[in-house]
């Protein structure tokens, strides 16, 4: 828009013709006989509205279009051939701008164009061609629903005034009533505690917990249940994992990654942040800029793993620098995609090559953000205080000396040497033991440092970093690093800024970006987060595209609900635990999940939440629950990961090793997301291969063995054991019929083997895998 304005203005001031004047007959004659044929034959193949894909954004079939120009600016200055890009291009004086591509014009032809421009470039008979990308209408763009500040909403009128328990219920019920639907009955207490426990801590309730809840006749029994679960140390582990999907977390990155620090420090930081209910706006900022925040602690630098663990792409330095620049540009795109999708629910990366086709995000916006990432380098960072760090460094130095001594001594085969080696090894162990933090010195993080991709000789490339330096970068026209456009100041998105966004001034601008996301960007960042949490609880979101709140995303099913909840979430200090309570204490959440033929016919997808959705446990909860009911689950928290294939691994699945390039079979079979990319939500699938795992995996067999052992300790006879099993696994006692079916099964032959098979069946059942 801005550029078009300039062009019109300059056209009026230029000598020769203004757009409004009509050309003289001699000019018309000159144009029609000499210029037009030339343009048609040699230029329009790539630069005309008549073809689908124009090159370089340039059209040469109207005067206005020529004056507006293409990617590299206005094509000519009327009256001034020497100032005209078109002349440079056809004279082929500039290596990068040589037209036409299929061979130079003849000298005579070049002279014709020169004369034409001198005459003011008359273009008779051309209607002004409108370019396909007319620029973004920011005022209009800012009006889109998701960019509006969320506000408390008036509660709608309801027929059934007794049902709602929280504000959110009013909005749900209003939509149901509008459709002549009604909510389901409240869920049974046993169902409710199982649902809530899996939901908040990813484990089944124990029989004692169920008992206590079912027999608690106080009005606030359920609220206290939620409080207890939110305070459980297992809560952070459950919800931390949800975040790690978005952050494409892995324990073992690509082998060529620059960082070698311990990724689990980031995982543990996330878990702790959830556990401690770190306000979400803080949570966001620390992950993007903990190193730059004045009040952050050394341990907080682990939060930088969100970006520090970003996938790195192979840079073959034998190739030309433009190729490597392309790879680096891909990495920026990955960061922008992940940050944009995770925090803002915007597909900003779509604006890399052209303005976003649907949302008000310009290419300039894209490169303004790319500059932030181009000025931040992925590298290991210390998560210790300076003092601790020094101690650890001293210890490491001592260990290194000892290790060198050991290495030397190993050449000597004498018994004395062996003795000395053993002693030194003991010393090493001792140093490790007495040095807190020796094993968690460094985490994948970020520092302020800008990247330089430089030619190394004629064909090769070198990558250099300038520590402490931040740099703006140029627009890459059509996403091509070899085709630089305007330099763009690092800054936040235009559409989320009140007027033109101000350039970032502190270093890379990462902290300013982080702050912008939770201040100007709050309408999106808060809404997106609230919707994600809602989706985790219900299985469906208010917005069904949790990482796309743009024009292409789905509109909210309950816009007032989302607004009201988000506004209050912000008022309540961006507290996730507040949000959990608000959602789970609502009548909507506490509904039964039972089928209803009539309602199902009216709303088969349960879009209007006339019941609770039945949920299949995700792979983490399923595996953890099996370990838990078998009495095998280790609740050891944090630290280095352990392979899930290791039969001795009885820790929560959260701690299973995730390799970026090869996912463990169990995780892969059960919809674990690809950790090379941001995963907006898991897509549940049901396949025979999953059931082969259920039927045949050593894991289930091991748990069956442990479960039987536990049942035999816990209860005296078969019937009691059957009930005990039902209580442990399903949170209820077995029916008479189920007992007799089980006894029948266990009778032939009555053996421990048969018991193992029975336990295996219970573990593999739908009732265990699904929460009503």
């Amino acid at each position, binding site marked *: 828009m801005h550029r078009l304005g300039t062009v019109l203005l300059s056209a009026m001031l230029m000598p020769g013709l203004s757009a409004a004047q009509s050309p003289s007959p001699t000019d018309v004659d000159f144009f029609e006989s000499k210029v037009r044929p030339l343009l048609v034959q040699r230029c329009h*193949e790539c630069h005309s509205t008549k073809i689908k*894909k124009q*090159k370089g954004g340039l059209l040469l079939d109207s005067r206005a279009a020529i004056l507006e120009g293409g990617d590299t600016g206005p094509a000519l200055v009327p009256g001034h051939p020497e100032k005209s890009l078109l002349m440079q291009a056809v004279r082929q004086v500039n290596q990068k701008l040589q037209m*036409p*591509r*299929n*061979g130079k014009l003849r000298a005579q032809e070049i002279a014709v164009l020169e004369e034409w421009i001198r005459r003011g470039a008359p273009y008779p008979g051309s209607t002004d061609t409108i370019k396909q990308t007319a620029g973004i209408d920011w005022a209009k763009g800012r009006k889109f629903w998701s960019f509006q500040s969320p506000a408390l909403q008036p509660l709608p009128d309801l027929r059934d005034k007794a049902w709602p328990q929280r504000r959110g219920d009013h909005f749900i019920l209003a939509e149901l009533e509008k459709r002549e639907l009604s909510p389901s009955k409240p869920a049974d207490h046993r169902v409710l505690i199982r649902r809530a426990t899996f939901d908040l801590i990813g484990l089944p309730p124990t029989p004692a917990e169920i008992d206590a809840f079912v027999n608690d006749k106080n009005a606030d029994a359920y609220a206290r249940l939620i409080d207890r679960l939110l305070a459980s140390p297992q809560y952070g582990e459950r919800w931390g994992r949800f975040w790690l999907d978005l952050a494409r977390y892995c324990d073992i990155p690509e082998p060529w990654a620059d960082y070698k620090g311990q990724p689990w420090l980031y995982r543990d930081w996330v878990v702790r942040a959830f556990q401690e209910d770190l306000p979400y706006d803080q949570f966001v900022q620390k992950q993007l800029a903990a190193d730059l925040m004045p009040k952050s602690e050394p341990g907080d630098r682990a939060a930088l793993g969100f970006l520090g663990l970003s996938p790195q792409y192979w840079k073959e330095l034998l190739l030309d620098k433009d190729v490597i620049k392309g790879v680096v540009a891909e990495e920026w795109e990955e960061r922008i995609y992940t940050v944009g999708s995770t925090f803002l629910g915007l597909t900003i990366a779509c604006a890399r090559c052209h303005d976003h086709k649907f949302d008000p995000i310009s290419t300039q916006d894209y490169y303004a953000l790319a500059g932030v990432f181009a000025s931040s380098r992925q590298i290991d960072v210390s998560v210790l205080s300076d003092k601790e760090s020094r101690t650890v460094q001293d210890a490491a130095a001592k260990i290194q000396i000892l290790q060198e001594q050991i290495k030397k001594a190993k050449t000597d085969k004498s018994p004395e040497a062996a003795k000395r080696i053993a002693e030194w090894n003991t010393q090493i162990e001792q140093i490790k033991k007495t040095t807190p933090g020796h094993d968690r010195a460094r985490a994948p993080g970020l520092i302020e440092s800008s990247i330089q991709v430089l030619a190394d000789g004629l064909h090769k490339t070198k990558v250099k970093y300038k520590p402490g330096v931040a740099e703006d970068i140029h627009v890459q026209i059509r996403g091509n690093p070899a085709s630089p456009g305007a330099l763009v100041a690092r800054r936040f998105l235009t559409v989320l800024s009140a007027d033109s966004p101000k350039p970032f001034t502190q270093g890379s601008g990462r902290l300013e970006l982080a702050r912008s996301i939770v201040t100007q960007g709050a309408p999106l960042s808060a809404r997106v987060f609230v919707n994600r949490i809602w989706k985790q609880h219900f299985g469906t979101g208010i917005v*069904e595209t949790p990482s796309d709140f743009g024009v292409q995303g*789905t509109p909210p099913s309950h816009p007032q609900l989302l607004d009201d909840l988000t506004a209050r979430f912000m008022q309540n200090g961006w507290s996730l635990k507040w949000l959990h309570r608000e959602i789970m204490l609502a009548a909507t959440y506490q509904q039964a*999940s*039972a*089928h*209803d*033929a009539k309602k*199902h016919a009216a709303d088969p997808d349960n879009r209007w939440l006339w019941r609770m959705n*039945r949920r*299949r446990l995700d792979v983490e909860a399923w595996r953890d629950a099996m370990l838990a009911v078998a009495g095998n689950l280790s609740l050891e928290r944090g630290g280095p990961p352990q392979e899930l294939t290791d039969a001795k691994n009885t820790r929560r699945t959260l701690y299973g090793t995730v390799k970026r390039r090869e996912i463990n*079979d169990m995780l892969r*079979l059960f919809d674990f997301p*690809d950790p090379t990319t941001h995963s907006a939500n898991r*897509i*549940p*699938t*049901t*396949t*025979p*291969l*999953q*059931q*082969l*795992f*259920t*039927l*045949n*995996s*050593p894991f289930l*067999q091991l748990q069956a063995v442990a479960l039987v052992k536990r049942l035999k300790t816990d209860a005296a006879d078969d019937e009691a054991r059957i009930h005990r099993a039902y209580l442990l696994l399903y949170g209820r006692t077995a029916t008479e019929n*189920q007992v007799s*079916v089980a006894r029948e*099964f266990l009778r032939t032959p009555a053996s421990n*083997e048969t018991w193992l*098979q*029975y336990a*295996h*069946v*219970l573990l*593999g*059942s*739908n*009732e265990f*895998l*699904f929460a*009503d």
Partner: protein
Amino acid sequence: MTTMVTRREMIQNLGGGIGALGLASLLATPSSAAPTGTHFAPRARRVIHLFMNGGPFGPDLLDPKPALHRFAGQRPAEVDLRTERQTAGLMPSPFRFRPCGQSGVQVSELLPRLATCIDDICVLRSVHTDNPNHGPALFLMNNGSVTPTRPSLGAWLSYGLGTENAELPGFVVLCPGRPVRFSELWTSGFLPSEHQGTYINHSDLDPQRMIPFLRNPSLSVAAQRRELDLLRTLNEEHRAERGPDPALEARIQTMETAYRMQSAASDAFDIRREPARTREMYGSGHFANACLLARRLAERGVRFTQIYYGNGQPWDTHNNHNEQVRGLARDIDQPIAALLTDLKQRGLLDDTLVIWGGEFGRTPTSESGNGRDHNHWGFTMWLAGAGVRGGMAYGSSDDFGFRAATDKVHIHDLHATILHLLGFDHERLTYRHAGRDYRLTDVHGEVVRPILT
């Protein structure tokens, strides 16, 4: 007979939707009767898709371009087309062609054995797609859209036809590694998840290694059946209390499929059970093994078998193109010829559609001296078998094999044609999702009728 009645009743009870058919077929006995989900009589009942991931260059193989020699090193106006990377002048293909078979269709010296099957093959020389990047092009070829969220062709077929053999997955993907974009290429998208492709890495020939957890290490078949009967009883009771729920139902069904898969797959996926003569006919290597495996699966009623040539994108010859393509062509020539011959001998070629091609082609212009860039403007694919005219070259590319020129076939047209051969009107095979009816071909696609018998 009883099964048939039950099946028919079931379809009627469920209102005759195609989704119901998918389910009905799942419940059907092995080797069930002709599929009933189609709109008209199908010519093909199953598909084998040989995917040359990375993108092969037609003028090396099936689309001779003598003009490349005359204009070697030059860059005439018509080849000044934008692809992914910068390319220089024209680089001739050094491989000689000769007319082959009764039909006289030209085949390159790189494919001497395939040349003997040319009378069964319909070469499409004018295919084009929308994007010169692997990801979007892979998606368009597999999912009918450059965005990664749409159901794949195989998923649509599984949805429309169900499986012919409930003991095996209806849609199998073979790759001795991981093709780029991996499982997104065989996703069920918004279709029910039972229709997603079953990915199998066949680089180890032991079915138990191809399919994780295929056998139970300790239980006898009888003991396991007993276990499964109990599981089914409990699961059905659980479901009955809760009313219809596709997620519960799908797990019950797939549990039975998994049980039968143990023995059926141990047999079907084991090419070591083939006579030595047959193994020799196909030759050695991952691709040969995959082709033989595909025939065994076709024989056993797998609807859609997709073979990715190799890990990553081996046909993506940005460097040393000629040298690489020699090896690649050698690797596919014998196995594909064997597959076509074998299918024909067994009478399977009559109702098996074989598709060959990449996600796009390559440029006739050179990249970094001796490589070729991606080319979405025009490329070569071929079809063979069920309902397709053999010994035919359809459409043409320009003089240099850069751009599709006459009788152009867009991927949407190809998809429409494939669906047509399988008995579907591509405009009527739809699924209601997010408020509208989706189809594989979106709002595009014309059946390429001249290539049909």
